[in-house]
């Protein structure tokens, strides 16, 4: 999920003079299209095809109709994994969005000390999920971690071994990793807001808080939708972080759809049901993305109304 979608810059009627440019834009879409076909569509169709087969990774693939689907859908692990996935999705959205917006707004002001702070804020973005997970796992170790190391008993919890705490830790680590990314999006969005809006409101006597709720938030509406889409769809595919931190445990307390898919496919050698879960993941993602888009309105109204 490294796709960055800036607020929609809508192109109205293309002037005749720039028809030449229009053609080159088609060419520019080609690399993305090729990547999408090769790494998006083809594997997707492959998974769809595999979901109607029975395959243990080694033997020849056998077409078995709906057998795998029946197995996948009747498995009590599936609703559980769906529940955990949505729990993590909703909680991480709730945790990340307000923080990201506030940091984004804070960093949008062109002050030098904020620029310095921004550099520090963005450091987690540079680290790989696996490295982050291993570090946090070591820090949170119940016997050799930071709690027992510093002798602070409040920190000495069974962070990853208790079902409720483990979910909380995952939300925290996910937020720690991705808040910088979303702050970056919001920072840019806030910088796009015309100063005239703020100046006019100041003359009308609006304070900082009023400005934030009446100007900043409505103006970054589309950015919130974009960022939320990335968060929601991204949280569907969280794998590395959870796999390293808890491996879906304790028990199956943090086993999301992605982990369930991996476990079925590569550990239990049930590629058919694992592919069904993959297809379900895609469907859930498409539906959620569409819902979020609807939430944002038709998308053809002006963001600059009244400006």
């Amino acid at each position, binding site marked *: 999920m490294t796709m960055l979608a800036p607020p929609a810059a809508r192109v109205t009627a293309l002037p005749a003079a720039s028809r030449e440019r229009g053609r080159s834009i088609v060419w520019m879409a080609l690399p993305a299209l090729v990547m999408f076909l090769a790494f998006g569509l083809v594997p997707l169709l492959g*998974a769809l095809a595999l979901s109607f087969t029975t395959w243990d990774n080694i033997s020849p693939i056998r077409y078995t109709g709906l057998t795998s689907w029946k197995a996948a859908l009747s498995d009590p692990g599936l609703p559980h994994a769906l529940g955990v996935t949505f729990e993590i999705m909703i909680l991480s959205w709730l945790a990340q969005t307000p923080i990201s917006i506030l940091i984004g707004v804070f960093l949008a002001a062109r002050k030098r000390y904020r620029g310095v702070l921004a550099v520090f804020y963005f450091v987690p973005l540079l680290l790989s999920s696996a490295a982050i997970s291993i570090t946090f796992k070591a820090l949170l170790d119940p016997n050799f971690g930071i709690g027992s190391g510093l002798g602070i008993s409040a920190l000495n919890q069974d962070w*990853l071994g208790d079902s409720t705490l483990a979910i909380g830790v995952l939300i925290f680590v996910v937020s720690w990793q991705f808040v910088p990314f979303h702050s970056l999006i919001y920072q840019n969005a806030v910088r796009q807001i015309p100063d005239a809006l703020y100046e006019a409101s100041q003359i009308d006597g609006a304070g900082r808080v009023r400005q934030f709720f009446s100007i900043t938030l409505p103006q970054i509406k589309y950015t919130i939708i974009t960022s939320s889409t990335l968060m929601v769809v991204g949280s569907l595919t969280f794998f590395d972080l959870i796999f390293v931190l808890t491996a879906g445990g304790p028990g199956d307390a943090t086993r999301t759809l992605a982990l369930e898919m991996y476990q079925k496919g590569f550990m239990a050698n049930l590629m058919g049901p694992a592919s069904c879960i993959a297809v379900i993941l895609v469907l859930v993602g498409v539906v959620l993305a569409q819902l979020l888009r609807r939430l944002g309105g038709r998308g053809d109204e002006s963001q600059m109304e009244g400006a």
Partner: protein
Amino acid sequence: MKRRDLLGLSVGAGAAAALAACGSSGPSNGGGGNTAGAATYWGLSGPPSEPLRRAAIDRFNAANPDTRIDALYFQNDAYKQKIKTSLGAGEGPSMVFNWGGGGLKTYVEAGQVDDLTDWFAQNAAVKDKIIPASFGAATVNGKIYARPVESMSPIVLFYNKKLFDQIGAQPPQTYGEILDLVPKFNAKGIAPFSLAGQSRWTNMMWVEFLLDRTAGSEVFDRVFAGEANAWSDPAVLNTLTKIQDLVRADGFIKGFSSITADSNADQALLYTGKAAMLLHGSWSYGIQKATGGDFVPSGALGYMNFPPVDGGKGDSSNVVGNPGLYLSISSKATDAQKDVAKKFFSTTLAEDAEFASWVGAGYVPVLKGTDAQFAAAPNADFIKFVSGTVSQAKVFAQSWDQALSPTAAENLLDNIAKLFQLQVSPQQWVDSMNGVIGK
């Protein structure tokens, strides 16, 4: 916006789907059944065993200049992934390293590995040197499909002698004594048992031993044979209840369900004095020796076979663990490659140098050794203990997760993790496990 959303989404979802569909095909160098002449071998990386494997291959290549073995080394988990996908794609090595049991059976059923029964019959000298118990996991439907190699690793009950001195207790002779020790250690702020619960197979060792001591090895044999409702034996409920009682009595260290065996944290808890006992594979000896500082050299590490359960029917000499590691021959290999592999099979570990190198590193080879060979080793006491335990054992049962098919094993590990987490009751466990017998 619309197309961007969909594009971004599809790439993410597509990547997830790709994970499911393709797996890691990886580079094909070193693999492939069509590189004429040179046989290929994939082994596990990491000290202390990788250098011993390398040396064995090098010696073979030096002694047989007209043939060649090309070796590649992978980390344990990465190898388990890679071998499955590459065998499926027909790009596996000519010698297939495996753990025998259920995993080997899936290779056999997919027609991926050769039947070696005739070869062993023709090369009785090779077969006679190998410890008979090692052949169990190499045999599928009465035929031998793998050559036992390297070492065998029973599960051992390790304990910290210093901590026993501290509370003035003796190592437990029965399971009842273990239960008596639990409150004594807890009162001193010492965890009775270390356990790497996140790794799951570590929890499984407890179920294996307790069930064996309670009812003997026959109960699991019936599960293995695919008998319907084989888990419904009352001894299973009894065992599972014992385990949950031990969890509730704080028998295992706080936070055990987030500890992994890969990081050796469970072993560190033993030698740093935070936990008094640990049930782990005999390979742990070498790790504790390498990382525990003065702990092993000072003689503070104690070890014993799992004690009997009071009133239990199982033979207390029985052990569980890995009765060996295995090499099979890929059916996709060329005849020339198969010949090289068989030549390697007839010499590996039988050479004194290779045998001594494994013993020296604290392993017990799958070949019949003499006490004289063991006595000369730097870890003689431990090696003698392990080889003695194995040779006296009535039954050396293979670890369940390796004996069963990967599908059944995954289900087993999943349920065992939930059992230790108190997420399922013993009865729910039995019902769930009965549902996947024979799969």
